């Protein structure tokens, strides 16, 4: 981001909420079905004991679900570069905050 007209892809659109095309019903329902299926998987899988892997599996499933919600329900898939970059930055910072704390707690 050294500064070249980063937001030009959004264009000036004052006056109307000329967003993007409405997400088709089919896609919304598909996403919902996938979320339900993932919920079923993550609940079902707890009856097996993989030790620490359980946490990994649970978080992977959760992150997949989160991805679905962000990309489709929250329309991030349809947003311009600026917003996508911003979302990315925010999650990077969160990851740094949690990750770097482990330089301490994991080595204490």
């Amino acid at each position, binding site marked *: *981001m*050294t*500064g*070249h*007209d*980063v*937001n030009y892809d959004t264009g000036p659109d004052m006056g109307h909420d000329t967003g993007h095309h409405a997400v088709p019903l089919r896609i919304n329902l598909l996403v919902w079905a996938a979320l339900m299926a993932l919920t079923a998987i993550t609940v079902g899988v707890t009856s097996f004991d993989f030790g620490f892997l359980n946490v990994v599996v649970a978080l992977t499933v959760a992150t997949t679900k989160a991805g679905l919600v962000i990309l489709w329900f929250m329309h991030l898939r349809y947003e311009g570069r*600026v917003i996508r970059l911003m979302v990315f*930055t*925010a999650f990077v*910072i969160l990851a*740094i*905050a949690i990750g*770097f*704390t482990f*330089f*301490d*707690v*994991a*080595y*204490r």
Partner: protein
Amino acid sequence: MSADAHDHPNFFQPQPGTKGGIASWIFSTDHKRIGMLYLYCIVAMFLVGLTLGFLIRLELIAPGRTIMGPQTYNALFTLHGVVMIFLVVIPSIPAAFGNIFLPIQIGAEDVSFPRLNIFSWWLYVTGAVLAVVSLVTGKGAPDTGWTFYVPFSAVTTTNVDVAVVAVFILGFSSILTGLNFITTLHRLRAPGMTWTRLPLFCWSLYATGWIQVLATPVLGITVLLIFAERVLGVGLFDPSRGGDPILYQHLFWIYSHPAVYIMILPAMGVISEILPVFARKPIFGYKMIAFSSLAIAFAGSLVWAHHMFVSGMSDTAVMVFSFLTFVVAIPSAIKVFNWVSTLYKGSIRVEPPLWYALAFIFLFSIGGLTGLVLGSAGTDVHVHDTYFVVAHFHYVIFGGLGFGLFGAMHYWFPKVYGRMYDKRIANWSCLIAFVGFNILYFPMFIIGLQGMPRRYYDYLPKYAEGHFISTMGSWVLAAGLLLMFWNLWRGIRHGKPVGRNPWGAATLEWMVPSPPPHHNFDAEPVVTHGPYDYTGVKPDA
């Protein structure tokens, strides 16, 4: 008032067809009025904070008890820290000058969310009032230091609950300002105002905005946790309940280290505006300065644990965070070098804002370079929590942000008021304050190296000399600052009227009348050149 100010009512006057009065200010959604509200509140809180600092110095003039007991002293430095950090320096330049000038500098009519803007001022006032309430209610003024470290803050019976709620609200206010600026800079730049034509002040506010948005919530949850710890008995930091007090420090500094860049970046932006104007020459390395603001903002979020080298955290963490701390120093170094080079082969006109800018560079360099001593693990062990740290942060905050703020006041004064202060007195007050500042804080480095811990109301006799000199310095500094504030005050009432562009600057705010009219521009401006292109620009007064 200047000649062309008569065409429009300026923003001090009531809008045509409306009544004036106090309500037209405190419910205004005009960014300039909101900025002025912030400016006056911040200056008032600054005076309060300074007075508290002054009292701290009086107590420390000699060992033993001089003018107050330990409990009062502990409350005093806590309050001094809280007022200065949360009520003065964090809002200071962005909320005051950023609000007034960011929209004009990009050719916009206002910020993106004017109502959120006034709401954030109201939050600020609420926070300030609560902070004052915490002093006089409950079982005494908070005595934890501005860092609110647990377990002490969880067990002390002083009025910490109210104080942390105040901090939470102030944090919210700061978030709204940052959010507003980021959106404004993305959406409301005038035609032709590309990112590479953005004044560096705006760039620094953009970087600051990101820190405000991404770091402040962590402070929010941290103080909420203190509140939960005290009120609900949730023992998340209480070792007897399985908690870990060191985690509090992580959370606190995850915000508060980036916060020091919330403080300094806008001041750096001001310096980047002032220097080219008075050197009559484009700023040296525009892109590097803009980029280094973003780099500081990002890298600043990687180093928080350098405040915790002796907290009991792991040695691995000490190594990583010490290393990264040194990395963060690089973008600051780049800025300093670029500023100095901006003066090279200029045609320098020496005016009060330039003096403040030069003082800034000198004092900030001292503060920053001593930051290296603190960032280096082995040496920090010795000087951590001593007056060396106190000296470091007064040099960067007061020498940096403070002098940057004074620079901004002197630079934009004629724009805001349409008048000019007495420049000779301004120069003298800068000099006196500068000298006093160094007498006040330099001895602190020395007693810090000798082992004088901070937050001590009483000290061993061997540190007496340093403390005494330091207290003397605070008097000189006080004289300088009182002179400065008096001079500005007098300038507002009786200063000589000036035109649009007394310094001959090239950014957009100097194209509009002084003081600016309500809607800033008659017609949306079209930008055709960079912010530091002085060809053909002449000072008009």
